[in-house]
């Protein structure tokens, strides 16, 4: 009796172990280059906007007050079904504004000129070259595409918030509650999120894929430009060549792809 119970438990244990480790083994197996199974092919839209390495230049000299930024932020949040939550602690922000001393914490000084001191700056995910959030994520729910855009898989995210602790720019938000009741007008072309997952700016990857410019670019009257940082002929490279630009916390080495003309 004792014996058979033991052997049963042993078999059950080994079986459970097998079920648990199979996917892990599959991962190692699939990286081994068996390549016999036909891989699904993904056709890209002919009109899709592509780049070797996406980047953004924000010309802050074209902004004067928070009112100039409001429509840009609204365009972004509306298109991406970002909820407007009553409790500021639970706020979801993809694109928002803050003061120079908070945005450029390493460059702040007391005697800076009045324009910069009081000018609101746009803040968003920096789509870093070496994103700390991607390094921290235990499930690859957040990942960097070959073209430099850092994305979120809302369906894989377990909500551990390691990425939020890792991001040195405070660019990530967590759904502390069901966001859907707080979306004023739902955009059916973009998914809403559920409670318990992290989200952030996605560089409008869904719009670039169909040939549209990011929503903030369209709403900015030419103050925001996106383009290929690897292409010397691109508009962003032209702006970087002809203007003095700064990035947020460059000393951390994350390599942010968002540049500010000040």
């Amino acid at each position, binding site marked *: 009796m004792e014996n058979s119970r033991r052997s049963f438990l042993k078999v059950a244990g080994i079986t459970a172990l097998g079920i*648990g480790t199979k*996917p*892990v083994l599959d*991962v190692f197996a699939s990286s081994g280059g068996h390549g016999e199974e036909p891989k699904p092919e993904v056709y890209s839209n002919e009109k899709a906007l592509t780049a070797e390495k996406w980047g953004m230049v924000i010309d802050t000299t074209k902004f004067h007050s928070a009112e100039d930024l409001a429509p840009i932020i609204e365009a972004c949040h509306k298109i991406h079904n970002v909820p407007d939550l009553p*409790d500021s*602690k*639970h*706020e*979801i*922000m993809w694109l928002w504004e*803050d003061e120079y*001393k*908070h*945005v450029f*914490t390493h460059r702040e000084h007391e005697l800076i000129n009045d324009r910069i001191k009081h000018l609101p700056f746009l*803040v968003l995910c920096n789509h870093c070259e070496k994103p*700390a959030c991607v*390094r*921290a*994520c*235990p*499930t*690859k*729910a957040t990942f960097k595409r070959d073209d430099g855009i850092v994305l979120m898989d809302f369906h*894989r*995210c*377990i*909500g*551990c*918030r*390691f990425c*939020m*602790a*890792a*991001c*040195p*720019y*405070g660019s990530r*938000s*967590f*759904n*502390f*509650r*069901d966001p859907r009741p707080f979306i004023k007008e739902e955009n059916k072309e973009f998914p809403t999120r*559920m*409670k*318990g*997952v*992290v989200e952030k700016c996605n560089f409008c990857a869904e719009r670039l894929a169909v040939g549209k410019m990011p929503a903030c670019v369209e709403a900015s009257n030419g103050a925001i430009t996106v383009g290929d940082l690897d292409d010397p002929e691109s508009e962003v490279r032209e702006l970087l060549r002809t203007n003095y630009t700064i990035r947020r*916390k460059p000393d*951390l*080495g*994350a390599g942010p792809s968002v540049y500010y003309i000040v």
Partner: protein
Amino acid sequence: MLELALKGDKKYWGWVIALLAVIGVGFAVYLKQLDFGLGITGMSRDVSWGFYIAQFTFLVGVAAGGVMVVLPKYLHDYKAFGRITILGEFLAIAAVTMCLLFIIADLGQPMRAFNVILYPTPGSVLFWDMIVLNGYLFLNIVIGWNVLEAERNNIHYAKWVKPLIITSIVWAPAIHTVTAFLYCGLPGRGFWMTAILAPRFLASAFAAGPALLILLCLIIRKVTKFDPGKEQIQSLAKIVTYAIIINVFFLLCEVFVVFYSRIPSHMSHLQYLFAGLHGHGALVPWMWTSMAFMATSIVLLVIPATRKHEGVLAFTCVILFLGTWIDKGMGMISGGFVPNPLHHVTEYMPTLPEILITLGVYATGILILTILFKVAVNVKEEVSGVTDSCESC
């Protein structure tokens, strides 16, 4: 052996039922959290980890602290600890179980937890934390159970257990090191970004864990017929003494580096914790209490007369445990998030539901500890008289 946990007097069952009641309340509130989301906690966009992760961090230390009775016994052949190694191992089981429960309680989508195994990501420290914690749990269950069963049958434990014991001794510092690496490798968090974090975690673990063991030994002596032993308790007290001194020394090293260099992104967190920042200082009284508790415990431990007096020692262990708990369970995690990377101050305090869920997890751990200690102590009582000749005990 588990059947030993089913026989007990009224006091035992009253205790078990009380714990089950606390677990029940915690679980009910957890169901509410599952339904509403983590918004029922005090956490926010700025302070995105709170009480759960802090308790997890502290308890990893308690679990690792158990090795302080296992190591002297098996690596230095310090025979006196043979009587209580099982208590260290069983404490580790209860503590790691609580750690895992706190992680689950903290997940936004707990039903997706297995994604960590389905999409293994060795670049993430959390992946390794999962491996070391589960591994340590597994090791302690196997070792504890086999050694205790052998003791009950008055035989030497099986040969294959010894390599596992050695592994577990190396594994214990690893669990707390990996846990520290969760924090200290993050580029934008000046408070945690220090190489002393893992050593500090270990020092506080080796103080808090054995201090708790001393208290448990004293309780066991009082409520059962098994005496863990005077020498054992005194040896533990010496370990606690060294560990708490090293812990405070490491903290002061950190304070020197931060305040002499005066780099704001590192300094502002300690300022927030100990003096308040921009008018926010909810943790200030807590942190100073923690410092006072740790300093007092050092004095009482260093003086031989107070260390050797078991009543004073019990008091010392209580304040030391509370002091290290405040330091890690309250200051360490939210201190790292305040101010946030944009230098805004959003304060954090746990909410009532959050505290109830936390108590539920603690009650679960204490229930596991009660059952395991009951089994261990009953076995010790059963075999008392023959234990002295048994090498494995």
